[in-house]
């Protein structure tokens, strides 16, 4: 293999991959949904709870100081990992969904009014759609949609016309259904050209490829810990210092204030202004450990591995099933993430994955929280296999075998 990832060694770091299901090994191909966690991430959280568990930014004793330092170190790690100019630009949230809600509702309520235009793409996840629908209902903002082409790319022909006059352009860096990698810098520039802010949903990008938010030039970037080897319960919103300073608080309570009286309150500095209540301390520390783990592998090696394995998968499926199997999205592995949504003959995805499950193959069937895209694709659901650092060619072969078994069972 050409890439430099030692997948066997990586596999050994993930305890769940030793598990048997239905009498065979677990073949986990649903990392776009949530990733598995390496021992190092679990150990970091366990270590925190067993040694330094205390509330942060409040305690005046040793373990409270350790907890605060561990949380802020995790923030610094995340900042470095995504090329953020400053740690304080990294806001911890509970997931990417909260991050995007913060943008739509804290920034949006303060800056948008009836008739203002927010531009999305047709391939957005519900997390980057429904908050804007709520703002539509509340404020009367208007949504416009950047269309996709038949092969699952963003249609760039009309981008500037559609974005013209908009206040916000918000889009996924990588599609969670098609794997398409969008031209982030191109869209950010178009947004700024039009006087709009650019919001990037990088939930499927940060885990899989080197990310530099400064090079993107975006205003806000959202992503989620559990898809990048981190725990559940932690997400990130990055924003430039300027825009974070100018955005009013969202959730409110402890931690995010400088002063509270019966009459009103004043807010704390960024990022704490946006972190109301006791944060997900252990989870932030776990995310920091996940970042360490990914940096240990090297994000270029991660990407190289996924391109190579996705290429193998696309070739294998084409060879074994020909026209019976249709993979949505870009045909060239180099232009996409390791997410493959497919339909097989006229078998419904849920029936397909039911058979897969008997073979230990974990593949998601459904709309993948992207119902508008499903409508564009003309399907109600797809089966989606997605690859990550612990997957190898044997996993892809197991998927192909499971597809063959399904064909067999339903005797098509």
């Amino acid at each position, binding site marked *: 293999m050409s890439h430099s990832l030692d997948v066997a060694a990586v596999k050994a770091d993930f305890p769940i991959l030793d598990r048997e299901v*239905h*009498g065979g090994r677990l073949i986990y191909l649903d990392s776009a949904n949530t990733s598995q966690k390496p021992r190092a991430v679990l150990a970091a959280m366990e270590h925190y709870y067993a040694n330094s568990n205390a509330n942060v930014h409040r305690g005046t004793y040793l373990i409270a100081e350790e907890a605060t330092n561990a949380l802020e170190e995790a923030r610094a790690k995340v900042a470095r990992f995504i090329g953020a100019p400053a740690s304080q630009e990294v806001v911890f949230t509970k997931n990417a969904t909260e991050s995007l809600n913060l943008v739509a509702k804290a920034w949006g309520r303060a800056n948008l009014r009836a008739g203002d235009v927010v531009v999305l793409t047709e391939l957005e996840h519900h997390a980057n759609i429904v908050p804007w629908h709520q703002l539509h209902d509340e404020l009367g903002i208007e949504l416009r949609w950047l269309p996709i082409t038949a092969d699952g790319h963003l249609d760039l022909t009309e981008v500037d016309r559609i974005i013209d006059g908009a206040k916000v352009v918000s889009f996924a860096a990588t599609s969670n259904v098609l794997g398409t990698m969008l031209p982030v810098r191109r869209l950010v520039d178009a947004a700024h050209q039009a006087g709009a802010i650019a919001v990037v949903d990088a939930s499927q990008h940060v885990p899989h490829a080197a990310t530099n938010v400064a090079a993107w030039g975006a205003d806000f970037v959202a992503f989620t810990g559990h898809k990048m080897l981190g725990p559940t319960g932690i997400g990130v919103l990055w924003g430039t210092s300027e825009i974070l300073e100018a955005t009013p608080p969202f959730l409110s309570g402890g931690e995010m204030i400088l002063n509270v009286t019966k009459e009103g309150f004043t807010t704390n500095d960024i990022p704490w202004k946006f972190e109301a209540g006791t944060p997900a301390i252990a989870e932030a520390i776990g995310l920091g450990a996940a970042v360490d783990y990914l940096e240990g592998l090297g994000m270029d090696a991660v990407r190289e591995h996924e391109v190579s394995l996705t290429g193998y998968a696309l070739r294998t499926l084409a060879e074994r099933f020909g026209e019976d199997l249709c993979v949505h999205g870009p045909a060239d592995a180099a232009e996409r993430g390791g997410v493959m949504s497919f339909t097989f003959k006229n078998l*419904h*995805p*849920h*029936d397909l994955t*039911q*058979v897969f499950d*008997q073979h230990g193959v974990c593949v998601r*069937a*459904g*709309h993948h929280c992207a*119902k508008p895209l*499903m409508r564009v694709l003309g*399907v*109600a*659901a797809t089966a989606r296999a997605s690859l990550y650092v612990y997957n190898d060619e044997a996993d892809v072969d197991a998927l192909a075998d499971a597809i063959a078994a399904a064909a067999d*069972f*339903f005797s098509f």
Partner: protein
Amino acid sequence: MPGLEDLYREIILDHYRSPRNRGELPVPPATRVEGFNPLCGDEIVIFLSVANGAVEDIRIGGQGCSISQSSASMMSAVVKDKTVAEVHRLTNAFKAMMSIHVGGDDHGDALPDPDVKLGDLEALQGVVKFPVRIKCATLSWNTLAQAIDEAMASEDP
């Protein structure tokens, strides 16, 4: 471990391949209700016409897996010409087969009637061993219940 044969009985696949009562009814007079299974994306559309307290006609639209589609198809066949009360008893019996607790509680539902005959629908019994699929099997029934409520509401003066 329950096998796939427990789930996919021949009669289910038959209804899936040749669904009964697919189509639409003019609205109004018919009632149109959509149902969604957020788990796997199944969507169902029920067109229902109720007259004199009974199901006069029913049509099914939408897209879904073999379990949700066959359940809808079998349901459509069995409820036609049944009174609303009979449909209610059938629904309870079907849900009981799916291990969903109904009746006997303070929601005023009757206990499932052991005399209700589910016929073809009994083929869906195996679903209960695959709990995730219960939502697929019951989607059309829940949607029907809502359609009946709406139809009755617009019948009432």
